[in-house]
């Protein structure tokens, strides 16, 4: 389907157009918003379409894969696209109230579109080297975004961010090269096909090479011990946009882990890398939340929480080593990604409002926000409880799925770590609440009208409530997405074609027979069936 190019084409055109419209703020806003809304509509349609009628792929220039570059939209990619555009639109509206003149003059809106472009591209790309390019586009957009406004802190942290990411990019190129040498292709579908036939020491080498990519993706994902860039850099991103960064950028890494380490690498011994991820996830969760515990800057706290939350997602990926629970674990991860993007973005947006209202980023200097801005307080408590995994919000369900998968698979240690992390997350979030929202008002009121910023934020918060109370469609969507990630046959058929024009193997998975439903195998059947 040729339209698959739209998620990158529209932001790119918009970015260029908006750049040329420099100096005409109103028009820039209108154009950006129009394109975002339109594209959001499109990707949601795409999700429904793909969910119904199977994986869509598109070959660039009409050159068929693996020879040409291919964009593939399976369920997972579509879910991620929808989230990207949803959060992107929300954040865009939010930034209408926060962007300063100088930021606007020096390419705030174009850069924002470039980030969208890079993120969307990463989700659609069906080729490893193309993914590298997408990463670079995303990164360079984020460098620019981070520096917009150009104050001292921003430039310093951007410098470190660039340096670290340059190492990552170098490793990515190296990984691509080595993989091309050993497998002879970089197309995901082709790789998945070819790695599956590998064995012996060649398979071992491919797994070792995949470690290079693992480092790259883990760096993007901000897992232990590669998360250095995150807590330093996110606090300097302009308010609002940090919401998009917090939600999407690390998730691009998780997505790539899922795509590459679950779907693509299928050689003998690929479980090694998944197990490595499981170990890393434990440290990530725990250390991330510990980092959050001793911070006093609201954005820093939230940034550290990203790390610990990413740990959960990586844990889901890591649990997939056990084929019995793989599908549940991946479904849980996908659901977790959805939840986390929405919640973390909304928290950053709320944090931005809180900063504006109180005129400070430090929670010790805030106080009494509950009285000053009760609406913000309501949004915050919902989002933070959701983040901490309290029912009835979405955070609870996705933690539950992962914990259940872990217990079924017998990974008790990681489940223990996950539970402890959940507790400490709650501790840290209630700390914010207690300091910033409760207490006496301890600062002068900055007369600031935040109502315009509330509406977009509220959309996200409502989403998390909805996903908690009415989770079934999301869960089953996640499950279907997980199934097509775990079994790449549909993907391969959609990309490489199965010879003739018969419909791809990935038939819509409607309600299957309950006893066959693996989600239910976890819990829902007597034991005999499971063994």
């Amino acid at each position, binding site marked *: 389907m040729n339209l698959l190019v739209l998620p990158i084409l529209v932001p790119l055109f918009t970015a260029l157009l908006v750049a040329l419209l420099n100096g005409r703020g109103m028009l820039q806003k209108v154009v950006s918003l129009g394109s975002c809304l339109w594209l959001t509509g499109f990707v949601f349609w795409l999700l429904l379409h793909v969910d119904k009628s199977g994986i869509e792929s598109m070959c660039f220039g009409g050159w068929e894969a693996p020879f040409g570059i291919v964009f593939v939209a399976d369920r997972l990619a579509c879910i991620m696209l929808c989230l990207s555009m949803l959060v992107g639109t929300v954040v865009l509206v939010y930034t209408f109230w926060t962007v300063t003149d100088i930021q606007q003059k020096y390419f705030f809106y*174009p850069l924002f579109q470039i980030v969208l472009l890079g993120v969307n591209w990463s989700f659609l790309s069906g080729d490893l080297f193309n993914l590298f390019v997408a990463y670079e586009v995303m990164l360079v957009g984020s460098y620019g975004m981070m520096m917009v406004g150009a104050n001292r802190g921003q430039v310093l942290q951007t410098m470190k961010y660039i340096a*670290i990411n340059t190492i990552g990019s170098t490793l990515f190129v190296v990984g691509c090269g080595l993989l091309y*040498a050993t497998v002879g292709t970089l197309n995901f579908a082709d790789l998945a096909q070819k790695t599956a036939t590998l064995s012996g020491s060649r398979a071992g080498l491919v797994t070792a090479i995949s*470690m290079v990519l693992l480092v790259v993706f883990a760096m993007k994902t901000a897992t232990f011990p590669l998360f250095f860039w995150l807590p330093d850099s996110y606090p300097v991103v302009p308010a609002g946009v940090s919401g998009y960064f917090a939600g999407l950028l690390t998730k691009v890494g998780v997505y790539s882990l899922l795509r590459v380490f679950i779907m693509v690498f299928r050689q003998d011994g690929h479980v090694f890398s998944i197990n490595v991820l499981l170990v890393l996830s434990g440290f990530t969760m725990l250390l991330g939340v510990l980092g959050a515990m001793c911070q006093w800057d609201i954005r820093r706290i939230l940034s550290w929480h990203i790390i610990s939350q990413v740990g959960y997602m990586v844990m889901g990926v890591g649990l997939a080593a056990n084929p019995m629970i793989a599908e549940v674990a991946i479904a849980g991860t996908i659901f977790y990604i959805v939840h986390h993007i929405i919640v973390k973005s909304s928290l950053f947006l709320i944090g931005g409002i809180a900063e504006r209202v109180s005129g400070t980023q430090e929670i010790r200097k805030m106080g009494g926000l509950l009285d000053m801005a009760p609406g913000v307080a309501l949004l915050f408590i919902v989002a933070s409880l959701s983040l901490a995994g309290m*029912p009835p919000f979405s955070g609870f369900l996705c933690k539950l799925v992962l914990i259940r998968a872990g217990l079924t698979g017998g990974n008790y240690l990681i489940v223990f770590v996950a539970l402890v992390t959940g507790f400490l997350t709650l501790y840290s979030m209630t700390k914010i609440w207690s300091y910033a929202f409760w*207490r006496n008002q301890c600062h002068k009121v900055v007369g600031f009208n935040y109502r315009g910023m509330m509406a977009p934020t509220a959309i996200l918060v409502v989403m998390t409530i909805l996903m908690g109370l009415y989770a079934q469609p999301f869960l089953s969507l996640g499950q279907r997405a997980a199934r097509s990630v775990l079994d790449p046959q549909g993907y391969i058929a959609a990309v490489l074609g199965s010879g003739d024009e018969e419909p791809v193997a990935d038939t819509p998975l409607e309600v299957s027979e309950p006893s066959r439903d693996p989600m239910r195998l976890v819990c829902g059947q007597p034991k005999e069936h499971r063994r």
Partner: protein
Amino acid sequence: MSDLEHVLPAIVFLPFVVAIFTLLVGRLIGRQAGWLMVLSSVTAFAGSLWLFIHQQVHDRVVPVFTFAWLPDLNIHLNLRADPFGLFFAMLIAGIGVLVGIYSLGYIPRLATGRIGRYYAALIGFMGSMLGIALADDLFLLFVFWEVTSITSFLLIGFWYEQDKARKGALTALQITALGGLAMMAGFVLVGEATGTYQISMLASQEVLRQQLADSPLFMPALLLVFVGAFTKSAQVPFHFWLPNAMVAPTPVSTYLHAATMVKAGVFLIGRMLPIFNQSACWSPILITVGLLTFFVGAYQAFRENDLKGMLARTTISTLGLVMMIYGLNAASQDALQIFNHAAYKGALFLVVGIVEHATHTRDIRNLGGLRKKMPTVFVLCLLSGLSMAGLPPFFGFIAKEALYAELLHNVFLHNRPFLQWFVIGTCVLANAFIFAVSFRLIFGVFLGPLSDKAQDVHPPCAFLWIPPAILAVVTVAVGISSAWPSTQNLMNMLSSEVHAEVHVSLFPSVDHLGPLILSCCTIGIGILIFKARGVVGQAQRQFDLLPAMQTVWDGFLNGVTWFAECFVHHWQNGSMRWYFSAILLFFVGLSILAISYFRLSFDLVPISLSQMPWSGLSLCVLLVITVVTVVVAQTRLGAAIALTATGFLVALIFVVYRSPDILLTQILIESVSTIFILLILFYMPSFKKDRLRPAQKMLNLGISCAVGVTMFIFVLFATSLPFRETENLAGEYLSRAFHGAGGQNAVNVIIVDFRAVDTMGEITVLVVVGLCIFGLLRTRRRMQL
């Protein structure tokens, strides 16, 4: 009968709707939001009562509401109205009515928005408690369970300007959430072992129970669920949050911390009894914890000077008692005990609230002689206090008799005479302490000389005294009515045990003198303790029974925070050198791990030196020399030139590989880069001597070697013949370059045609970098102006 089950979700979810409504309109109606609370609780009470009566009149069918909420997770919205659940629901809704009325008089005139929030949380809390009472799915129960934690957190922190209130709220949330997490894991394990989360099914089906009992997950599940119940019900050693939570407004304390929420843990154990009680450690754990809590609570209550603290600790004590009853498998009297406690403790809390409202103090040492100022309240306090003391004919007496009777005839204890007498002795002593506490309360507050604080006190308004009056009347009425067997039947009906046979009577028969004797002992010892309160108080200050768990908990949290600070300080230290080293070392470590794990050794790689072209060799040697020059160069210019030379040499290596396109590009790019570097060097300071210590330099060198060697190994393996994949895409590209795309230079055709999207990304990067640099420099220049 058909629509009966639809009453259930209405009971549970209507309060939530009302809560949201209250939140929305709270700003407008302020104090009047209390009526919404009254209204919703009356509705819930009426609904529950109707269900109960209907159930009793019509063939005792239990209405069940089922809705497939999360079929994928096997979690269903199952509500089930068995008598025990209905009893609990009626208790919640009934006390809710009273608390709603009481709040109307109690909550001071604050900002209307804040009062709206208060009522919203209170109503939401009630809804979730009703959910706990009626849920028939472990995870549905868990959802409501956590919602009570959240709402109680918000309610305890009502006076959030005060440090103590925030601390109390946080501690309460932390402890209950910790228990909640444990409980969640426990529930998951139960589901793992049995395949269902439906409580009634687990309780009733022998097969499932057997499956659970045989599972290795049985013990952990049991323990985890226990932790959840213990934290919620403030059992030792998790009891400390409850006294701290007394900073809440008194209606909240009454509702949450006396009548309903803390009973959720007990209720849960009651629900779990049929599921878990085959376990060998069911009784020992519950009896130990329950008895310990029972005694410690009573003992510490007597020491307390804060009125609400006293009541909170006696509450802990009673909760321990109920736990113990469950441990003794004597569930038949749970409804009796719970109801009894809710009635008198609710009334006492409300009375204390009135006293505090009027005198602005809760310290018993500052109070006294209030009976003259507020006689009605005195009467109410007397009635409830005597019930707590366990004097006839009050409800408390009945409950205590029932307890003693159970202790004397319990099967579990009967075979262990020593344990039996130990338990009975401890219970008598604990009850005696409670007796003394209630006397201390009555005497300290209402009798004796009028204190200074109480000089200008006037009687409470009707909103304040009517609710405790109703509870006091209930206490008396049930006590007296137990002379008739219908009360006994009612209590048996409400109990969690299906065929409960608890014997309740105001007038002990000749056959059952044992309990009466024990009661007399209790009262005797109680009077002694009360008389000797000076001495006892002195002694209690000497012997603290337990280390202050609050200190332990705070110490734990502080320790974790301290560790976190150390970690962040050393780990996220902002030093690029450390960041780079860690990243690279991680990369090296992981790669080496993988390489050694898969036993890739150099034996697998054929190394032939024969095919080496001389041009290549000389280029490589030169390249190594220039790299070393860049590294060791002491001047900026030297380094820059060496770097450029490196770039050019790399370009020449591309020639060896027959790739002229990149040769040109590389040379041009290298030149432009050099220009940039020189441009910037012009502004930057010259190289200084490294401040690094020799050890650090060695470390750097080590890391560099490790990285270099790792890359060397990777490249060597990947390019060597046994590992190389020769069936790659090259042929395809070459054959199509001319005929398909009409170009002779295959590389260029790939760039602009086959893989044009890569190029598109690349040029996008270039454009964006231009924009970034332009923006950065212009912004800076503008800031300087």
